[in-house]
């Protein structure tokens, strides 16, 4: 069957999206992440109310759960790529779409299509809750708020894509999960303390600058744009690496 190139890409993308939305675990993960994020937002808001309130504080309170929320998006990314390998699904996939590069890229694109709205809803709901609860009387600059929300959404999407790329490299759910969670929650926080010199070049610490508020008392080493750049660079490198390997490797 001969199909035009653009039609082919659309077909692959819709197939990947179809596979993704019919994966029950994706919905469990997203719902779970949403609920946990709200619970954490409640917790952080009640802690935050004990301290002094301010415009930036309110946004920070709403985003304080980001550290935990990223776990949900790591799982999302891993599930996307590793679910192909739990059964023989990968062989069916490659039989019907024998263009590996397109197929894996389309998978990342499909993941981004799902992750972006999900991340935005979760981040916005956390900030909204903090806003409603603290009843911040100060006028919030819509501009800053939107920038922060977009940055946080971008960070979560990027994390998710990075996890998917690493998932495609290693192909087994549990080891990938262990490596990524271990990195994001144990190694990286410790590395921040012990190796302050090189801490800004890692994907999560650089991505941190994408959504953190620019407060005057802290020295911001990276601008949001630099943070986005470094984070994106990591994600792209891993995606390219996984695509290259995917094309070479026996399925």
């Amino acid at each position: 069957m001969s199909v035009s190139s653009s039609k082919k890409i659309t077909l692959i993308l819709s197939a990947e999206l179809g596979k993704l939305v019919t994966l029950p675990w994706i919905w469990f993960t997203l719902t779970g992440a949403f609920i946990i994020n709200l619970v954490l937002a409640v917790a952080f808001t009640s802690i935050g109310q004990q301290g002094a309130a301010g415009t930036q504080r309110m946004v920070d309170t709403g985003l304080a759960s980001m550290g935990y929320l990223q776990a949900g998006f790591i799982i999302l990314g891993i599930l996307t790529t590793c679910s192909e390998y739990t059964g023989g699904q990968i062989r069916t996939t490659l039989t019907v779409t024998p263009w590996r590069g397109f197929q894996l890229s389309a998978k990342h694109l499909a993941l981004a299509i799902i992750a972006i709205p999900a991340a935005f809803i979760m981040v916005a709901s956390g900030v909204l809750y903090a806003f409603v609860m603290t009843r911040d009387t100060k006028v919030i600059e819509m501009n800053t708020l939107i920038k922060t929300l977009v940055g946080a959404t971008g960070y979560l999407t990027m994390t998710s894509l990075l996890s998917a790329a690493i998932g495609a490299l290693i192909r087994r759910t549990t080891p990938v999960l262990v490596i990524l969670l271990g990195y994001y929650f144990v190694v990286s926080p410790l590395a921040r303390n012990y190796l302050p010199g090189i801490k800004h070049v890692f994907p999560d610490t650089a991505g941190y600058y994408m959504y953190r508020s620019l407060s005057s008392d802290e020295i911001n080493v990276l601008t949001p744009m630099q943070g986005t750049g470094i984070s994106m660079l990591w994600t792209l490198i891993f995606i390219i690496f996984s695509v290259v390997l995917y094309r070479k490797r026996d399925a």
Partner: protein
Amino acid sequence: MRAFNAELSKLLSLPGIWLALFIGAFAPAVFAALDSLTQKADIIAGTSTRLAEVGYIGLGFGVQGVIILGALAVSSEYLTESSESGGGQQMTTSLSVVSSRLYVLLAKAGAVTVISALLCMIAIIIMVPTTHLILDEYAPAFEWSRLFGALCYWIFTALLAVGFTVLTKNGVIPLAVLMINSSIVSFSVLLSKITTLAVYLPDRAGIDMFMSMSDRFHTPFIGGLVMFAWVFVLFIIAAIVFYRRDVAA
């Protein structure tokens, strides 16, 4: 006993087990080494405040290894094999061979206990010389009671992972929850800022067995008891669920 041997051999032949053993054995030493280096700088500067914790902090984070071990031990049984090899679950075979479900669960818990105890000993054996090598004469004396506390902490954490995974049948959720919870940004620390009852959470209570932090609440013995109570209750729930659940469900 034969069920126990079987569980032991199943556990040690799992595909992901190398990762658990590797992290469990070496992560404490690596964390302890990094912490020792920072401490050494502090000692030279004369600002060291928490010398007594050096090394133990590694054992606190190194517990990740046994979390993986516990979660893998159970989730591997429920992993559905690919349709090309029948699409079965190992659990069906395990329960056909050992017909008592309680025995299967106990043997599994026993195997995990033994492996995590051994792993913790190996970790301590690697970690202690590392600290001594870096800190030299400043290295804290490692008391047996505290090391034993760390050993109990590892075993209980592994058993929590087992009990939790029996309930969920899938390794992803227990791994995510327990690994995040044993890291720096744990949920328990967060909760302890809201309510003082959080000191009775298993990991907060358990860590009192060997860490003497400023916000310590329990004595080591009570801490151990609280954590053991959690493990015990979780295991009773897990046993009831496991006993009543359809194998294939």
